[in-house]
């Protein structure tokens, strides 16, 4: 494996790592493990922990995928491996 493709793969894994951390924090973190504590905070009529489990994590999942698609496109071009 040459240096360029090593760099490309580690940039990819770095991006995946960052996104998976957010993915884990909003669903398993805010939606499950810390839901009880967060319920003390109100978002309109929603207790916050409940909101993450029933609404918020889904919106953030969508944002994560589009961010991923865009950031991956940038990485592809930076390492010149994008599709024509």
């Amino acid at each position, binding site marked *: 494996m040459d240096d360029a493709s090593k760099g490309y793969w580690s940039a990819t894994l770095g991006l995946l790592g960052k996104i998976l951390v957010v993915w884990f924090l909003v669903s398993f973190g805010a939606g499950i493990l810390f839901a009880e504590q967060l319920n003390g905070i109100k978002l*309109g009529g929603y207790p916050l922990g409940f909101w993450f*489990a029933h609404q918020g994590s889904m919106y953030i999942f969508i944002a994560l995928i589009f961010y991923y698609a865009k950031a991956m496109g940038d990485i592809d071009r930076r390492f010149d491996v994008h599709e024509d």
Partner: protein
Amino acid sequence: MDLQTTIYLFVGASFALYIGIAIWARAGSTSEFYAAGGSVPPVMNGMATAADWMSAASFISMAGLIANMGYGGGLFLMGWTGGYVLLAMLLAPYLRKFGKFTVPQFIGDRFYSQHASTVAVVCLLTASLTYIIGQMTGVGVAFSRFLGVSSDMGIYIGMAIVFAYAVFGGMKGITYTQVAQYCVLIAAYIIPAIFISLQLTGNPIPQLGLGSTMSGSDISLLAKLDQVVVDLGFGKYTTTTAGSTLNMFVYTMSLMIGTAGLPHVIMRFFTVPSVAAARSSAGWALVFIAALYTTAPAVAAMAKLNLHSTVNTAVMKGGDLFAAESSIKAEGRPDWMKRWEKTGLLKFEDKNGDGRIQYYNDKTKNADVKAKADAAGWKGNELTVNADIIVLANPEIALLPNWVIALVAAGGLAAALSTAAGLLMAISAAVSHDLVKGVFNPDISEKNELLAGKISMAVAIVVAGYLGLNPPGFAAGTVALAFGIAASSLFPAIMMGIFSKKMNKEGAMAGMLAGLFVTLFYVFAHKGIFFIKGTDFLPLIGGANSFFGITPEAFGAVGALVNFIVAFAVDKVTKEPPEHIQHMVEAVRIPRGSKLVDGAH
């Protein structure tokens, strides 16, 4: 126009639309049959994926489950959507770059072993077949409820419709029909939700309505619901978890991994034109799925509140829930209750003989509620409500016009048919491409392979129909099994194939088999060997949910973990994969050089 005629009209029009699309989108090549020619734009593929994914269960049952479970029901919402993040980043773009038609083909090529491919075919067929039994029964139930035909008749009609567009159109026909089905089902889900949210909160957007205050008061809808259900002895809506926190955690994880590993969903990403399109298409799929999944919790909470306020007038007016005149008189109950009582989904039994309906939790541990109920002369809960009522009767509970009820009927049928078609596609591709072409007759011509594909599709429809008509006694447990298999065998194998260049065939196969075995062992211990009654062996594993209180439905994530551990352990002591395989993995990782999916070996 009466209700039944309106329903026939809506359902008939939607069927005519699907068949029209089928005639327009006939498949002329194997590429069109398996992958819609690799030419579906990402947004449209996202829509088709959403319809493929959202089954009769999502449409009809999910909101009711959430209504019963409260906060804990969030595990379905997070589990069935969070998997798309994994799918988008870990699997879809790389499988698209690989450029073949099926999941077993990837596993067979990557692990340079026909055996690995065969193991994958077995996993795929088991997962898809168990999943489709549930769909076919769902089709039957939907037809019988909405069209007033028998459930068996419903399955025959469903088979005929799916046959028309799946056999001739293959993936191409299925994709474009699913786009239409998505539009029908989402309209059917959201329109009643808008009405009901407006009525209760004055806010037309259900996702916002759920977090708003009740019309004409300053108490929030969720606080009101919490108060009512707690007063009636149920668990607090916004905090009741599904079992322990650990169980909810593992269950959510299992659904996420299982979602990402379900072959009929993965296959959809072979139909887009490029790697970049595969990435964004997963995002679009989730947008279209979330449109329903974020509405569902609003429908759940609002319909639950409506139901309580229908049978107990003190819910909305305030005052004593336990006062004699608060419970409505049985004679005066609304017509929709009488209608659904006929289907058995709603049952009323006057246990204390006072001619009124008392709906509360008679098994409550809350001594205060028990004392009040006893003092009021209540002799037990008198209303049994099937979870499906929440969606099915939602428009009637909210007194919406007939055309909305008819639309819900067409939507439920669209949801059931689109998922069944997607599963049938995955099954027939595995049979004709991975077994017939891959194992038995590698030299088959394209024309004959296309014919084999169509024949196996037809056979799959007949088999699925037969299983739907004669559901083996285990139908209820099967969807959990499909997720368990996908999570414990397919997902880890594909992921390691991409992310570990050194993973060899011995490791992958040992991992798949170990993950599958552990998961099946735990499920069968609870539900019987192959779900045969009386063959469960709970004492052997030390009682129900003995593994840290985890339920068998939630066990897939543990199976996946076993798969990873065994695979890496075996990989360490066996020899590296050959050089050309490692180069192949490097090539799969970069988008450049992607070509149309052609399936050539």
